[in-house]
């Protein structure tokens, strides 16, 4: 049995369309999204329509909590004033352009999900099992800590997103953590593709595959420009390098990028 997990859509409906098509070609049986539907990109209603039409089971991210409850900001927790300025431009745009129906839908999403398939217990969350907006970076998450935050879930596999960078690790106590990556923007590696994750539960082992997704990023960046979104965001889509939100990156992850 194959399951697909999307994260961090950031309004990138073109990438979501491409990922849905890719998952369909792979005979994926169920689709999940781990939150942060809006931000960054244009026309935030489009990803929500796609998710609902495709029957994707969704978990709420901090951004969805904010938009759904019409809060003042995205609760992303950036520490740099310019990051917060860009985030606010994007947030105000997304809030304004998200329909009341979709806001209600975002507001009602669960903050986590527990499910079992083929004898594998899974826990789905956005940031970490203990807090929606907690960053679990690969280089700043010790094995011992990962066991501590995963243990209470009782799950064999815990899946999250939030940081924008996909990674996986099996803990000393045998639990698996998977950051499924994001479809909203590239992984700060100088490539324009984005990522989602397929879990294959057909064998005795859980197989995790990180799937690169190519999509029409030229079209996306054109629409971002015409919607008046920050040039810095457009540069990220076109170059594959993050230009903002860099202050929260640990040094190891930061070194992988250009900025």
């Amino acid at each position: 049995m194959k399951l697909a997990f999307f994260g961090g859509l950031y309004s990138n409906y073109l990438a979501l369309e491409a990922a849905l098509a890719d998952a369909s070609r792979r005979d994926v049986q169920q689709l999940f999204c781990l939150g942060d539907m809006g931000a960054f990109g244009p026309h935030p209603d489009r990803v929500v329509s796609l998710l609902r039409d495709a029957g994707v089971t969704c978990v709420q991210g901090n951004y969805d909590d904010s938009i759904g409850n019409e809060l003042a900001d995205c609760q992303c927790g950036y520490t740099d004033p310019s990051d917060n300025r860009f985030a606010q431009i994007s947030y105000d745009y997304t809030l304004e352009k998200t329909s009341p129906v979709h806001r209600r839908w975002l507001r009602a999403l669960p903050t986590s999900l527990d499910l079992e398939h083929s004898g594998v217990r899974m826990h789905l969350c956005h940031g970490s099992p203990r807090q929606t907006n907690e960053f679990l970076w690969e280089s700043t998450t010790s094995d011992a800590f990962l066991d501590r935050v995963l243990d209470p879930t009782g799950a064999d596999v815990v899946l999250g997103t939030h940081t924008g960078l996909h990674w996986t690790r099996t803990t000393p106590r045998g639990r698996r953590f998977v950051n499924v990556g994001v479809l909203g923007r590239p992984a700060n590696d100088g490539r324009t593709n984005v990522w989602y994750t397929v879990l294959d539960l057909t064998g005795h082992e859980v197989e995790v595959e990180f799937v690169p997704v190519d999509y029409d990023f030229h079209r996306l960046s054109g629409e971002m420009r015409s919607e008046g979104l920050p040039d810095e965001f457009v540069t990220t889509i076109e170059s594959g390098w993050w230009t903002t939100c860099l202050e929260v990156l640990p040094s190891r992850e930061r070194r992988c990028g250009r900025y």
Partner: protein
Amino acid sequence: MSIASTESGQVSLSGLDELWFQVAGTRCNLTCTHCFISCSPHNDAFGFLSLEVVRKALIESVEWGVREYYFTGGEPFLNPDLVEMLVLALEYGPVTVLTNATVLKDEWLKCLRDAEERGPYSLEFRVSIDGPDAATNDPIRGEGTFDRAMRGVETLVRHGVLPIITMTRTWADAEDHRILSRFRDVLARHGCDRPRLKVLPRLLIGAEAVRTCGYDETDHVSVGMLDGFDSDQLICSHSRTVTDQGVFVCPILLEEPSARLGGTLAEADRPFSLDQGACVTCYQFGAICTNPSGQVFEQTGDGAGEVHT
């Protein structure tokens, strides 16, 4: 903030996310006039930690599920075992060392970067420089320290380190933007073109209480102030500090006897009463000691409520 008649609020340890090592005690090669624990070349109030104490605490920390380790002083690099300690700690988790960058040696950095590259975890260097120029920094940290710290930054950059630069705010809040912008320009001229900058509030204790003024005697965090407040914003809810004289609630209150919570981590797993003036500063500014990547911000939304199972 003076609330003389109200009881102090208490904060329990919700989980040990960060373990601090007061690895150089109160010994420092500098004598900064704002130092909240009055470190200097002659302050032996707290001594160096030994490699064995650090090793034992690291082993013990695993069962606590510690996320990351911080090494501070004084100046940590005065401890002759520091490099070995950092290499060892990197086997357990991510490590941050807080330094004034004036005593760094190439051979140490080579060894440390090699150790970082061998494993999965980040080694962060947090460098204290209190302003973008000598005119701002040197009156606080000492004559010539700005230039020496900048040479230290150049050394770090040469070894591929992307430092976090911390500065204690000795200017008006409204000046932050101008100072940060100028700092970025200056650092770039020294080869550090993508620093992470962190502005810290002044803590009105130790040397700083002499330099300017201390807290009011009655300053504390009351029970009422904690009502509806997310205590996870305070490091005492998720950190402890190992010193040569036992385990303290945080790396700030070392001169406060009530902040020593026990001889071991287990003994230090008890609530702390926020009856110190410095607690008010943490209350106002959040987890000021934590790296930007490790800060968890309070969610103000209702989080939708139901959890599907």
